[in-house]
C-alpha cells in the first residue's frame, strides 16, 4: 500500500516540477500513438464500413479473421516487424529499426483490426436502418459508405478511441522494435518497464499514473472537440 501512495506522490512531483524527461517521453508516447491511430483509422474505418455494406463470397471469413486478429499478441507483432525491418531482413535498407517509425508500424498492425472490427459492428446496425432508403435513392456504393461514415461518426469515434487505448498502453511490441533507447524511442510504457526492472516501484507507478492521466486527457479533449453528449446534438 505504501508503494501506491509513493507512486501518487512521485507522479505529483514529476508533473509539478515540469520534469524535462517526463515531458519528452510523454510527448513521444502521444506522437507515436496518435500517428498510428490516424494511419490505422484511415485504413480500418472505410474497411469496416465496406464490410457492412458490401456482400461478397468470403465476407464471413474476412470478418472472422479481423475479429480474430483483435487478439494479436503484441510481442509476436513486434518480433515479426523486427525481423522485417532488421538490417538483415527484407526492408533493412530503409534503416527503420529502433526508430519511432518502427514503433508506429507495429502499433498500426496491432490496432487496425480492433478499429475495423468495432467499426464494422456499429456500421452493420446503421446499415440495417439505412438500407432501404439508400437503395431506393439509387446511390452508388461509395456514396453509401460515405453516408454511413458521416452519420455513424460517434460510433466510429468510439472505435478509434478503443484503438487509442490499446496503443497507448502497449509495451511488448514497441520494446522489441523501438529498443527503449533513451531520448530516441523511450516512451511512457517502456520507461515503466525499465523502472520496474530497477526496483524503483514508486517512479514506475508515478509514470503509470501519468500515463492513465494522459489517456483521460486525450479522451476528454476528443469528446469536447467533437461536441458529443450535448443537449440537442445527436
Amino acid at each position: 500500500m505504501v508503494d501506491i501512495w509513493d507512486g501518487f506522490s512521485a507522479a505529483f512531483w514529476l508533473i509539478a516540477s515540469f520534469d524535462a524527461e517526463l515531458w519528452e517521453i510523454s510527448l513521444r508516447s502521444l506522437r507515436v500513438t496518435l500517428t498510428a491511430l490516424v494511419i490505422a483509422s484511415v485504413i480500418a474505418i472505410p474497411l469496416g464500413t465496406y464490410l457492412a455494406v458490401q456482400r461478397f463470397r468470403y465476407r464471413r471469413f474476412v470478418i472472422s479473421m479481423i475479429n480474430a486478429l483483435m487478439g494479436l499478441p503484441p510481442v509476436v507483432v513486434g518480433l515479426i516487424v523486427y525481423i522485417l525491418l532488421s538490417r538483415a531482413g527484407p526492408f533493412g535498407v530503409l534503416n527503420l529499426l529502433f526508430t519511432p517509425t518502427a514503433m508506429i508500424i507495429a502499433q498500426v498492425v496491432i490496432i487496425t483490426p480492433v478499429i475495423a472490427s468495432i467499426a464494422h459492428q456499429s456500421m452493420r446496425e446503421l446499415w440495417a436502418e439505412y438500407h432501404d432508403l439508400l437503395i431506393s435513392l439509387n446511390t452508388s456504393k461509395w456514396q453509401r459508405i460515405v453516408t454511413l461514415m458521416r452519420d455513424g461518426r460517434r460510433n466510429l469515434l468510439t472505435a478509434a478511441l478503443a484503438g487509442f487505448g490499446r496503443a497507448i498502453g502497449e509495451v511488448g511490441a514497441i520494446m522489441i522494435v523501438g529498443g527503449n533507447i533513451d531520448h530516441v524511442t523511450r516512451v511512457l510504457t517502456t520507461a515503466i518497464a525499465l523502472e520496474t526492472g530497477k526496483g524503483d516501484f514508486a517512479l514506475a507507478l508515478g509514470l503509470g499514473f501519468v500515463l492513465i492521466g494522459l489517456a483521460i486527457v486525450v479522451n476528454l479533449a476528443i469528446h469536447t472537440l467533437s461536441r458529443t453528449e450535448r443537449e440537442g446534438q445527436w
Partner: protein
Amino acid sequence: MKRLLTTVAMLLWAQTSGAEEMRMAVTTSFDNSGLADVLLPAIKADLDLDVRLLVVGTGQALRLGEAGDVDAVLVHSKAAEEKFVAAGHGTHRREIMYNDFVFVGPKADPAAIVDAASAADAVQRIEAAQAPFVSRGDDSGTHKAEQKIWASAGLDIAGFGDWYRPVGAGMGAALNTASGMNAYIVSDRASWLNFGNKGDLALLYSGDPALFNQYALLPVNPDKNDSIRNDLAVKLEAWLTSPRAAALINGYKINGEALFVFNATP
C-alpha cells in the same frame, strides 16, 4: 481552437537533430548498475557522439550484432563472445572492465551459505536445503555464469525440483521475483547495489574467483551492411580504454563501494 491544435500538432511532430550517433547493445546489468548514466554524457562531451543503448540480455545483444542492427556490443560472457568473433560477426574482442557476481538471499539464510567455502559449496548447500532459488533463465551472461557454477558443483539443473525457478527475465525483474519469494539468486554486484526493492534480501556470499565477471566490447563486422558505423565503434573503443574512462569507471561508487574495476590493456 484550430490554431491551438496546429501548435500542439507541430510541437508533437517536431524533430530534433544533433551529433553523430551509433547504436550499442548492452546487457541489462550494465544499464541497471547506473554506470551508463555516468559514461554516456562524458562520451558525448569528449567525442560529440551519441551512443544509443539497446538494453537487452547478452543472448539478444549478440543476436542483434549478428543481424547487423547495432554497431557494437558490450556484454559479459567470454565463451559466447569468442564464438561471436570466430563466426565473423565481430571484428575483435576488447576487455574493458570487470566486476563480480554475488549470492543474494533471505537474511535468515536457511541454506547457511554465508560461511560457504566456495561458490560451488554455496550452491551445494542451497541444493541440499532445497531452498527457493531464482534463476535468470534468459541465456544472458549472468545466467550462463550461474549455470557454470552449478556444473562446477557437479549438480544437474535439469533434475532440480520446483525450488529452482528460472524466470526468463532481466536482472532487475529477476531480483524483484527473488525479493517477492524470499529466494536465493545470483546477481552481478552492480545491479544488486543499485536495486531499489531489496525487501528482506541481503548479500550473503561473494569473493570466489569463479564469480569473476569480465565485460568486453565487440565492434560488429562492418561487412554485414553499409549502415554499420565501424568508424564510430573504433572511436568508442579508443575512448573506453583511455585513462579518462578508467578514472570514471574506477571512480563510480554506490554507498562508498566501487562497482567496476577498469582492466583494459592499452
